[in-house]
């Protein structure tokens, strides 16, 4: 743990969980572990922070990358880009930056791919995937639906 009165300048890396309540000016790498930035903690990194799991109660100025998940708690402040498989964002957290979701390959598909290289197995025909449009498939101003629109006007082409 880095306590409230501590300031660290430089790169931090290791293989144990870390809680920061002080100030870290540098990059942090805890690839297999959890990093918690406490309510009074501040991290400012050039390349940013990499960990298995990152939980922010305090403030961060720099990019965050987590293999499992990033949590930004209420009243936390993060300016930087996020990259993870999962995000948990609480209301009233301040965030500014891009968010990239890491797509994890489904285990079944991965196993099928691995099996296919060893022995070809006939695959059942895949069921048709539900259209993502299903949620928005109704036409606008559909007479069957009560419409909130009283009028629509299109501006002139400029």
């Amino acid at each position, binding site marked *: 743990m880095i306590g409230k009165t501590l300031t660290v300048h430089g790169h931090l890396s290791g293989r144990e969980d870390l809680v920061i309540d002080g100030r870290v000016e540098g990059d942090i790498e805890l690839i297999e572990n959890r990093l918690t930035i406490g309510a009074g903690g501040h991290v400012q990194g050039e390349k940013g922070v990499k960990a298995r799991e990152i939980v922010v109660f305090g403030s961060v100025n720099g990019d965050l990358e987590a293999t499992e998940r990033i949590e*930004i708690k209420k009243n936390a402040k993060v300016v930087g880009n996020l990259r993870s498989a999962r995000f948990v964002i609480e209301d009233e957290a301040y965030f500014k930056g891009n968010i990239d979701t890491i797509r994890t390959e489904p285990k079944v598909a991965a196993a099928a791919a691995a099996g296919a290289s060893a022995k070809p197995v006939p695959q059942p025909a895949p069921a048709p995937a539900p259209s993502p449009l299903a949620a928005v498939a109704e036409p606008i101003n559909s007479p069957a639906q009560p419409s909130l629109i009283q009028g629509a006007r299109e501006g002139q082409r400029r």
Partner: protein
Amino acid sequence: MFERLTHTASKSSAGNHTPEYALGARRSYAFETITRRLVEQPCQHVLDFGGLNQPNLDFFSKFGHRLYSEDLLRSIDTFFTPDEIDRRQIEPSRLEQFLDESLDFPDQSTDAALCWDVLQFVPPVLCGAIVERLFRILAPDAYILAYFHPETGPQKTCAHLCRIVDGKTLMMRPRGAQRMIQPFNNRAIERIFQRFRTVKFFLTRDHLREVIVQR
């Protein structure tokens, strides 16, 4: 205003009043139009200026879009002094610095900007500059979604947190302190987006104007 709509009841043939939506939720035809496009075209770069929240992030991630999120009003409050905002005059260099910090994207690199009702709470000099910058960074055919409150409403009101419920429904609730609201009539809205190709209005029962602007 939004609350008024959320309690709107439709009278069924039996004479019972049935709420149209869950408390706080409203259907948005403008948002629905944007959603259609976002569903059809994967891997879009979407800018959300209403601040990050979990439902919006989940919604855009589900379709594989890349989301840039910022609470523009909070950024303005942090960057500019109350004096700069009250005087309604901002040094051009300060303005440029703010835009470079908040909207620093390559030209024509983004596909949609969700402004919600934010633009009405931005000082006029800043509002024009933000729209101008959006014109620069949005790709051709990209959309802006913006909401404008009725001109006859109060001078001060709260901005709203807009949470996406599904492809056509939003949950809108007041957030933060009340702010001065800039009145926009339809002509003023068209004028501020005059460089854009089209401005499409969706008028609602509560006179909120939902606007889709196409680059």
